[in-house]
């Protein structure tokens, strides 16, 4: 089974994140980035499937120069090959454009039996790219999998909701987005780290994918971030000295905030 895993290179949540003042897009140049932690689950799931059977795992990312690090990390974990789509014109792309580029890249890879994605990116976190991508590829989409099994031509997932857990099946090829409950991603082993350097990584531009630059980027986006204001610093909390009525006053406070 050949699997393509879409991984996003995102700003490290541990470092100072900000917006580019000129166009209100995420500043991706001046921050440390990494493979989105939520996408590590997709990589891990792909590796487990291939290790239990056969086939290849290809990781695919769209992003600036440094996004090569996200591909490298997935290769160190054990993926077989990487594809990095990078083009200045892609900067500022919205979810429809992102899914367009991903779809064309997957076609150029030669398709896949299974496309895996994370449940959301840790920066944009719209959770819509998987659905859009499935639509563009004409694949069944089964999202938010917290368990995944493949049997022959069928993929079965469990989706945990508040009220019930659903079991959903789809025929392959299919697209599945996975949650952070599905597995525990491995750390790259030292052998993996050394082997990664020798694995093939393709670098594609928009031209390589036959996409016109007018279809992507900030100009083509359907929505626009008009303004950005930093969240005000947190207010000092209310301190309730317990004079024997602490419990009652706590309940009063929670009620006044409509928590209870």
């Amino acid at each position, binding site marked *: 089974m050949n699997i393509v895993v879409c991984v996003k290179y995102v700003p490290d949540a541990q470092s100072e994140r900000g917006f580019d003042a000129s166009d209100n897009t995420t500043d991706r140049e001046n921050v440390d980035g990494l493979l989105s932690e939520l996408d590590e689950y997709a990589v891990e799931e792909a590796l487990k499937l291939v290790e239990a059977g056969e086939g290849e795992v290809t990781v695919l990312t769209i992003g600036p120069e440094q996004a090569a690090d996200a591909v490298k990390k997935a290769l*160190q974990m054990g993926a077989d090959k990487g594809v990095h789509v990078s083009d200045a014109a892609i900067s500022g792309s919205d979810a429809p454009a992102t899914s367009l580029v991903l779809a064309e890249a997957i076609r150029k890879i030669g398709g896949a039996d299974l496309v895996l994605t994370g449940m959301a990116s840790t920066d944009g976190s719209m959770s819509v790219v998987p659905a859009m991508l499935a639509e563009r590829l004409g694949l069944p989409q089964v999202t938010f999998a917290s368990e995944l099994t493949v049997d022959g031509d069928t993929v079965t997932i469990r989706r945990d909701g508040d009220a019930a857990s659903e079991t959903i099946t789809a025929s392959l090829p299919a697209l599945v987005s996975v949650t952070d409950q599905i597995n525990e991603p491995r*750390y*790259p*082993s*030292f*052998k*993996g*780290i*050394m082997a990664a*350097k020798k694995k093939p990584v393709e670098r594609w531009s928009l031209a390589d994918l036959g996409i016109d630059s007018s279809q992507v980027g900030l100009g083509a986006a359907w929505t626009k971030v008009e303004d950005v204001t930093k969240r005000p610093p947190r207010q000092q909390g209310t301190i309730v000295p317990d004079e024997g009525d602490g419990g009652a006053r706590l309940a009063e406070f929670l009620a006044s905030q409509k928590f209870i």
Partner: protein
Amino acid sequence: MTQHPLELFAVDGLIDSDAKDMRDTVRAVLADRVRPHIAQWYEDATIPARELTRELGALGLLGMHLEGYGCAGTSATAYGLACMELEAVDSGVRSLVSVQGSLAMFAIWRYGSEEQKQEWLPRMAAGEAIGCFGLTEADFGSNPGGMRTSAKRDGDDWVLSGSKMWITNGAVADVAIVWARTDEGIRGFVVPTDSPGFTANEITRKMSLRASVTAELVLDGVRLPASAMLPDARGLSGPLSCLSEARFGIVFGALGAARDCLEVTIDYCREREIFDKPLAAYQLTQAKLADMTLELGKGVLLALHLGHLKDTVGVRNEQISLGKLNSTREAIAIARECRTLLAANGITGEYPIMRHANNLESVLTYEGTSEVHQLVIGQALTGESAFR
């Protein structure tokens, strides 16, 4: 914007990307699995050696700089940097790895028969088997050549008798590399710890390296087949070359403990208000921090230089002695100076300072005491041996 002490020295530019990625991986794994528990393990004088060894084995950390037999085959520098991360958490954790990879596995890898390598190295690399290294005896530490443990021929077999003292991993090991006196000089033996006549008695009541297993090994007529002897190690140079491997890790490791102390202390000084301003804003504090940072950075530069030598032209024993002497001596000085800045808080288990300082007392002593390394360097400089 403040800078990390090692950022001031821009050391990252001296490290290749694989070694950096491995270092960062070790740091992440330890932050996840070991750091949250280490203070308690130390307090309780325990370490989940088996579990930890398996986890570190899965990463490829055990015997990482050896080639083949399931070992990762990394650079020596990458190994050193991993030791620095391990010891930044605790010297006991680093000791476990040093003994496994550089003493026990290295002895087999360098001096063992093909059969011994096949039997032990893959399992030890994976962390499924734990090794220990028995050289020191109660009466022979700095002078191991005086050892009394003996191996005598009986037909084709060997019979080992005697005892070894202060043996790291001793009570949890599956295999012990034991050095013994024979008619043909000192030889090494691969001793499965379930051999009849072999016992390990854990040494308790340690005030240092509490998160590390230390034991006395007793060999009461342990009978081994001829194939148990390490064929290629003859005389004291065998065990001494293993020690040199492990010392290389300590050159980096001890500085990890110092780095951890310094990081904690800088944060503490910036938070702690004394006479209405942060402790960090006093000149005396800054002088201490600057001096400690300088020693740490110089030590790391020396360590990386030795790593570069080892990865290229090779490193000589007396050069490793320079590093072992410098790193352990400066690390313990840094830990103690940090303790003064944390004052009362510094003596508690809430902060890692005293734990590191206590650990470093052992690190200063084992693998050749500071005095012994001064003598090694002195001999290289003067041509005079002052050992006896």
